[in-house]
């Protein structure tokens, strides 16, 4: 984990309100898919770091790709970053996706709803790199007209199934509807997206008796496990906190769906 000024290497405008950038930072050396960073704004009125997931990792060039949706003050400021700008970064934070539990899995479903898709790109690249071929990626978007960001990049690595809220591309509905219409029966799921979708994934996994790993969000202050701001209710006493609460920034953000109460 390091705290330093990262340098913006290139900026992308990927879709309506969706931006990306590659940041040059030594945090890339130890980063894994599913981990995140905290980015500071330049404003003295907005002092908490903004948690943003690591979308892709380039270890050789020591850079991290981040993709974000403009949701408020900080993400709007980031959308106006330019190449060569410096930005205060803390990371990599949290635990990435557990891919050790994959052994024996034949049909892997990776599900990203909206701005939940970016952290899954690095995961799919890693899975693809290990020679796994049966990867189906389900991506949910608002509308084709707003832009199906990252979908083409996922297509280079896996079979992609699209769902849109308005039916303008792929299945009309959510990623779970897209899974349904694909006729596939996954034996493991990795998911990131809005809470209603994650609840649906957890329920699907429980009904089908398969493991699911979900990436959670919560308001954060420190990002490193010190403030206890970002907890999620757990089904067991957490080893660190000794209560039924785990820190999303430290024990997560990725959890086995069966272990958390969401």
């Amino acid at each position, binding site marked *: 984990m390091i705290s330093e000024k990262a340098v913006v290497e290139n900026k992308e405008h990927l879709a309506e309100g969706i931006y990306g950038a590659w940041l040059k930072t030594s945090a890339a050396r130890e980063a894994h898919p599913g981990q995140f960073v905290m980015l500071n704004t330049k404003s003295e009125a907005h002092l908490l*770091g903004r948690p943003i997931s690591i979308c892709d990792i380039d270890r050789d060039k020591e850079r991290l790709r981040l993709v974000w949706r403009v949701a408020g003050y900080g993400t709007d400021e980031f959308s106006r970053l330019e190449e060569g700008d410096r930005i205060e970064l803390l990371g990599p934070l949290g635990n990435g996706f557990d891919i050790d539990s994959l052994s024996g899995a034949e049909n892997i479903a990776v599900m990203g709803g909206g701005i939940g898709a970016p952290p899954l790109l690095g995961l799919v690249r890693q899975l693809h790199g290990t020679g796994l071929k049966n990867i189906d990626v389900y991506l949910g978007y608002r509308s084709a007209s707003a832009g199906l960001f990252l979908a083409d990049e996922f297509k280079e690595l896996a079979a992609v199934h699209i769902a849109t809220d308005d039916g303008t591309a792929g299945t009309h509905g959510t990623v779970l509807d897209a899974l349904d219409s694909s006729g596939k029966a996954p034996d493991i799921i990795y998911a990131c997206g809005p809470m209603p979708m994650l609840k649906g994934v957890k329920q699907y996994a429980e009904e089908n008796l398969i493991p699911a790993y979900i990436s959670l969000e919560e308001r954060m202050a*420190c990002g490193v496990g*010190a403030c206890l701001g970002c907890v999620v209710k757990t089904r067991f006493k957490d080893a660190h906190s000794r209560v039924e*609460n785990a820190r999303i920034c430290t024990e997560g953000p990725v959890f086995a769906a069966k272990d958390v109460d969401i």
Partner: protein
Amino acid sequence: MNTAVEICGINFKNPVMNASGTFGSGMEYCGLVDLNRLGAVVTKGVAKVPWEGNPTPRVAETASGMLNAIGLQNPGIDVFIERDLEFLKNYDTNVIVNVCGHSVGEYVEVVQRLAECDNVSMLEINVSCPNVHEGGIAFGTDPGALEEITKAVKKAAKQPVIMKLSPNVTSIAEMAKAAEAAGADALSLINTITGMKIDIYKRRFLLANRTGGLSGPAIRPVAVRMVYEAAHAVKIPVIGMGGIASAEDAIEFMMAGASAVAVGMMNFHNPGIMTEIIDGIERFMQEQGIDDLAEITGIL
């Protein structure tokens, strides 16, 4: 030039420490910050048994600050002694243990357990906890309750006792005097100021607990004023905190009467901030020809 300060006979290599609850027990930040450089590590509030804390959201950003309603989640004194205090034995710094409880008896039990621990330099008693026997009113907002708890803790304590005052009172001088009269060895202030934030589009409170404690640079002028008033009301040393973000801020608190300072929320913004403040204090002393910080402590 000497950055060291002495509080209750304990030597601090410099006057800078973290504020309780913003630095875990140092463990979470030890990869980013050299704990050996700090005047002290102040641990997160610990109670007799594990506390669950409040529902989420527990934190919210506000203009130049934040609200928190963590609800004093903690693993309980047993795990704290075994794990956190054991961890801190690896470092050459003072350890100040922050204590919380729901009743006088609970505070006293924790303080008794800590009496056996030889790497605890001082105790800091967080009186901003709801007193379950008195309708949930915080111990720290009533002078009588503050005196009662101070006396009980002092009787059980082996280490010097810092009473951490709440700013949510009409007269901080009155509270400071009550703590001193009851035997407190030192005071620390300010704890967070009770606040609230509403999401007007969702028509909801930002915090699940509705109210939370405000901290960060937004509260600094209030904190400086209260440190000044408290320090002038008592003879015991005062540790100042509330929005400290630079060496200049730290020196401002010292001139107002603080013998040492604590950095809270700003650790989240910049984990290197305490070491930067220590370096900045040294630079200030050099520039201003100050040999000992006692020369500027409480000069106003």
